[in-house]
């Protein structure tokens, strides 16, 4: 989906804040991901055009950062830390059990991540970048299910608050 007029205006506003337009690349990629649930090829081309870059450069930058997904991954990204403080507090087991639990659920993407700077909550999990911890496997499933049911309101797949126009999980 290409930029709508409103989106283009918003994008141009973002660009205008920076002394140099290319600095708006990451914010625009976030914006595109908020909208589509991942960074689509079309969005990369739109952004390239807006910033006067080639799509190759946009892809080059986009593919460097782990938060940007370039294929659909579902509405909920569950990030489980397994770095050392979580490792010694059960992170690996947590990720294994969640992976198994949601293996067939297209809505939920479970990924093992590096330290998310919340080691006092180890083992820690983020659901669309909202922190939860310490969690047992059961508690984690409970939280994820609450997001699925809407009892908890999830952020976007890029961690932005859900606002009009962005893709509600």
């Amino acid at each position, binding site marked *: 989906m290409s930029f709508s007029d409103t989106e283009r205006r918003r994008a141009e506003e973002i660009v205008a*804040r*920076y*002394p*140099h337009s*290319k*600095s*708006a*690349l*990451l*914010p625009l*990629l*976030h914006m595109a991901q908020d909208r589509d649930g991942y960074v689509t090829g079309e969005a990369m081309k739109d952004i390239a055009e807006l*910033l006067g870059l080639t799509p190759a450069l946009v892809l*080059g*930058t986009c593919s*460097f*950062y*782990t*938060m*940007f997904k370039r294929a659909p991954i579902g509405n909920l990204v569950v*990030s489980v830390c*397994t*770095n*050392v*403080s979580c*490792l*010694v*507090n059960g992170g690996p087991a947590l990720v294994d059990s969640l992976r198994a639990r949601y293996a067939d659920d297209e809505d939920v993407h479970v990924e093992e*991540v*590096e*330290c*998310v*700077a*919340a*080691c*006092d909550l*180890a083992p820690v999990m*983020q659901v*669309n*970048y*909202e*922190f939860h911890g310490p969690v047992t496997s059961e508690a984690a499933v409970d939280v994820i299910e609450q997001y699925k049911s809407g009892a908890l309101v999830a*952020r976007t797949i*890029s*961690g*932005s*608050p859900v606002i009009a126009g962005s893709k509600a999980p």
Partner: protein
Amino acid sequence: MAVKETLVITKFLRERTEDSWEYAAAREHNNAYGALEKALKMEPAALVEEVQKSGLRGRGGAGFGTGQKWSFLPPDIFPRYLAVNADEGEPATFKDHMLIERDPHQIVEGSIITAYAIQAHHAFIYLRGEFALGAERLQAAVEDAYANGFLGKNILGSGFDLELIVHRGAGCYIAGDETGLLSSLEGERAMPRIKPPFPAVQGLYAAPTIVNNVETMSAVTQIVNNSGEWYAGMGVGKSLGTRIFSVSGNVERPGNYEVELGTTFRELIEGLAGGVKGGKQLKFFIPGGASSPWLLPEHLDEPLDMDRATELGTMLGSGAIMVFDETVDPVLIAWRIAKFFAHESCGKCTPCREGSGWLEKVLYRMANGLGRAEDLDLLLGFGNNLAPGLSWPPGQTTICQLGPSTMSPTVSLNKYWGDEIRARLTADEARRKTLQVTPA
């Protein structure tokens, strides 16, 4: 053990847990932007001097004198930029995360003061992408600051203009390195750059740029609120003032503790953090983030002093202390840290790009009973081309410190348990051989 924290930059957020991040609360109960009002009445140069007087050293990891860094700006080159490093990615560090979510105004205020001191009219807070709530609160704080005349044109009638942008990253540790951060802020792959030129001379958009950590900015606010001299009255040696330490791992009360520098590891770990969890014995601890070489129980009475840490062959780094009990296999920890670095290497330098992956692969087999007798020596062998000398501070064959840091865990393994590990590897290899079946 009766140990007390010294709350300077965490005082307010501890006091008002329910709304410390909100403008009204911060203004009313913490005199937020009071330091700014004071600073704007001073000459920029006087501010630089005040911060130099405080002895404040960067809280991002490198521990460089903050006022000194500011004074390195070439005198006549404008524009200049300020980039506040809120990318907090060093494993087990979670102090900036807390400051961002719970006292964003202190950061914004320190950033404005710093921008004024260095005469920058554009400042950026480069925020770790995964801090979703942090982004919201920091953004709100910035908007409040604009709304109340602390940002924008002619701040508080001083004639000083400043635009402050909260810029979200998108998941990458290396954007925490100051030059990686600048590349990322320019919309590039967050690749660190060759130094010199240093950012203070040629940074963002090739203009002079100061990069400072979030905690550093918070401390600046309090230094201006009180005085440089007052700040320098705390601490030990050349490690002055207070610092927040993130304590985690196998401890009873993981958390952030703000203490005067010079406090001992024991006071921090056993006193404030409640000691090793479940009454187990301490096996080892990592004193300054995943990059730093490890310490043993015998070092518990050493002071939290950056220069003493260097003498011990390690560093206080980002202030992240990871505690491991007797049941933890250090090889497993070494592997997990290696895995982190392999995942986060930007890929620019050959030794780091290739070496970190190799390191991870060998440590993996070592940690999983699949080691070979010569593995530890193999690591030390090629590792010497990644961190020449295998000591701390390391020699460097790469652009940034990530490269040599990858070797810290392995060097520590060898230093403390070398013989033990070699014996274990030999046994592993022997056992594997007896298990081997000849393929049909």
